[in-house]
């Protein structure tokens, strides 16, 4: 029985050339083709084409839920991005503001050089009668007229500047003894400053009355280079405003 079966198999496997064998060959070629294609297409479509309706509905639900989740995530991320970009803008603006403020305060405190239109006043005092009070008058007059940065000789004039008399013909400003001719540099609207100095009974007239002389030169560019070291207040603290 066994040998008979194997023998018949061997006989069947022996190649023969008949019409029906050719037909069988063609059929098997088609079968192999179909097998390969089916396996390939299944691999390609993840088996979706053969999945049942309920499975497809489940898959669709999954995809929809996933899609919604991702859309929500996208919205969140976009909001975060918008926030971050406006935040960057805001901090950039704040930084610029702070820089401008620092420049302004630096000019006021005399820690940075300043340049701009202004006047140069040269005071000569051959009789040595121009005293600290006269100098202070001149400075106050310039401040009243809107001078934004002031320098006397090599000293930057700030809020804490003081004047005092020393030997006749000299004035001490912030511990620096100035010698003649005194030079005052003031940055501001040059015409206003000059006019303020020259008004009748004003600084220039007063200085002339004392026996000195003052020449006022307006110029488009006055550069105040004298600096004053920034001092950190030891006791005073800013009041934090909300």
């Amino acid at each position, binding site marked *: 029985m066994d040998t008979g079966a194997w023998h018949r198999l061997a006989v069947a496997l022996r190649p023969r050339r008949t019409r029906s064998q050719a037909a069988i060959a063609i059929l*098997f070629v088609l*079968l192999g083709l179909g097998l390969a294609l*089916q396996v390939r297409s299944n691999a390609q479509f993840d088996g979706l084409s053969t999945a049942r309706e309920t499975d497809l509905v489940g898959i669709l639900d999954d995809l929809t839920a996933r899609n919604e989740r991702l859309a929500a995530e996208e919205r969140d991320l976009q909001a975060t991005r918008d926030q971050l970009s406006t935040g960057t803008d805001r901090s950039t603006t704040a930084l610029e503001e702070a820089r401008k403020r620092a420049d302004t305060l630096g000019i006021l405190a005399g820690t940075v050089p300043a340049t701009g239109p202004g006047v140069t006043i040269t005071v000569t005092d051959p009789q040595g009668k121009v005293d600290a009070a006269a100098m202070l008058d001149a400075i106050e007059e310039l401040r009243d007229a809107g001078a934004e940065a002031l320098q006397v000789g090599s000293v930057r004039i700030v809020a804490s500047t003081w004047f005092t008399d020393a030997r006749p013909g000299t004035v001490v400003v912030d511990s620096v003894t100035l010698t003649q001719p005194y030079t005052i540099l003031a940055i501001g609207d040059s015409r206003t400053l000059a006019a303020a100095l020259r008004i009748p009974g004003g600084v220039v007239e007063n200085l002339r009355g004392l026996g000195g002389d003052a020449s006022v030169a307006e110029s488009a560019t006055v550069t105040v280079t004298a600096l004053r070291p920034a001092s950190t207040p030891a006791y005073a603290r800013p009041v934090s405003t909300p």
Partner: protein
Amino acid sequence: MIASLGLVVGIVLGLVLHPVVPIWLQPYLPIAVVAALDAVFGAVRATLDGVFDDKVFVISFVSNVLVAALIVFLGDQLGVGSQLSTGVIVVLAVRIFSNAAAIRRQLFGA
């Protein structure tokens, strides 16, 4: 011999050329393949029984494929395509198993 050669040639052709299956053929291809497999197992069994006949094989092969495709087509038209496909697959699988059992008994006597 020539049959297994044809099978190998067909598989290689399918893998190398990977032609696109026409869309109207796609629902029928898997059923047709299984039906053809059924015919092949039947042919092997007939060979071992000594009753193999070329004509019978060719006709059974072609008719198996056509009937399977027709059933699936009908099922699609009636709206029970997937159920009918499942039924056809079950029937063919049962036949393949019984043929395989007969082949096994013939070859190994067990």
